[in-house]
């Protein structure tokens, strides 16, 4: 079934390859629009509860590890760059480089998850858990579990996006290694790039909102 990029023809219901590409890309932007609104629900909940409990949020935020959060920010920014270069390599017909950059992006995503694993297991260990499961004694505000409900929900849903993204990268690596992408067909790589940058973008906001409350 694998079709090498140079032999690829656009689907019959499109006028041209360009038409197919533009339509696919618009679909991706529309998907990202609903992704923004999906996350907006969490951000709105965060904003409301923070406005209602400013001191609790400040104290609870101190329990997060800024170094880990900053490290993960850098990791994701790097993965955005490698993803952008993966798209560039496909556009310029450097198929081997495309595969290589996709693999590096995958590895950086794995690093992100490993760091997140260490953060989560520490929180679990000291009872910094959502809502009624909150058992930490260092934080005295009885509502502190609310912060961790938001922390786990927001970073959890974001982490889920990373995991799903990694599965898509594996699929792209497989296709790329079969020379399916090249300068005249790179739609999947470019569209996934949009998704991946979006995931990075969410983290760019999550990091200061959760880790750096002064």
């Amino acid at each position, binding site marked *: 079934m694998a079709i090498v990029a140079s032999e690829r023809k*656009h689907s019959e219901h499109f006028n*041209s*390859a*360009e038409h197919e*590409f*533009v339509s696919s*890309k*618009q679909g991706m*932007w*529309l998907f*990202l*629009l609903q992704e*923004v*609104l999906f996350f*907006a*629900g969490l*951000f*709105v909940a965060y*904003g*409301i*509860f923070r*406005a*209602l409990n400013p001191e609790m949020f400040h104290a609870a935020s101190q329990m997060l590890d*800024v170094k880990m959060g*900053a490290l993960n*920010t*850098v990791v994701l*920014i*790097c993965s*955005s*760059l490698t993803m*952008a*270069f993966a*798209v*560039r390599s496909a*556009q310029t017909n450097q198929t081997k480089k495309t595969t290589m950059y996709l693999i590096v992006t995958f590895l950086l995503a794995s690093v992100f998850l490993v760091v997140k694993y260490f953060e989560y297991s520490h929180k679990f260990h000291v009872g910094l858990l*959502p*809502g*009624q499961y*909150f058992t930490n004694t260092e934080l005295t505000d009885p*509502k502190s*579990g*609310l912060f961790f*409900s938001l922390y786990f929900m927001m970073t959890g849903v974001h982490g889920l996006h990373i995991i799903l993204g990694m599965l898509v990268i594996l699929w792209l690596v497989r296709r790329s290694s079969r020379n399916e992408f090249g*300068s*005249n067909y790179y739609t999947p790589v470019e569209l996934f*790039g*949009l998704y991946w*940058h*979006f995931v*990075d*973008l969410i983290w*760019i*906001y999550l*990091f*200061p*909102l959760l880790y*750096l*409350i*002064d």
Partner: protein
Amino acid sequence: MSNQHEHHEHFILPVKLGIFVWFALIIGTIITVLVAQVHLGEWNFAVAMAIATVKAALVVTYFMGMKYETNDNRVIAVSAIIFSVIFFVLTATDLFFRKDGVYVQKGDLEAWAALGADSQTLKFKKPWVSSDELVAHGKKLFDMQCATCHGSAGKGDGPASGALNPKPRNFTQASGLKNGRKPAQIYGTLQKGLGTMPSFGSLPKDDLWALAHYVSHFGPDVLKDSNADLKKVGIDPSKEDGGLGGAGSKVLPIDFAIELMSEDS
């Protein structure tokens, strides 16, 4: 070949620009962390959000290629921001500028919670027979659930009425209620909904009756139900519980869930 030509017009991120954007993002992250160590009071939040927004703008403009996008896709991206802002502003406005007394009170919540899965009892005996307590209870529910559209005086002029077509019913008039304005008829409408008016069937049955009695009090005169009217909405007046059985489905209002969440944690 024409396809290939078209593809060459697509934006290809130059290596140098990519690395420059990456560098700017890293610097932005470092500044964010450093600024957080300095105490600027409320400005910390503003600065952190400003830097995050600059970083986000860089990602969107260059990595996501918005600078070279079609106008269609620009509209989509901008509407994502506009919708989010509307979402946030309206939610905050509702929560922080609501009149006192319109909130669901903790006592109400506990009363509703008491009607949990194992409870099959109604708060009121024979709620289809009007009483002062029922009407007073109905007023409380009406102000919470109905006044937004129907207005607190039942004139169909609530704050949300402007957006509705047809307009919410005016309960002070003798005509206009499609199903009739006897309590049992109003009870039926509450259960099933009617046109734009949603069904309130998830509320406990006696709450629905309290609402029906309260609404019928707005009218020029208060009508009484005959046994036939009651039978039409499934009430058997000869039985102690009227054949109502349970208190309604056990759906918790959202306000309640939020309240519980913040109380429990």
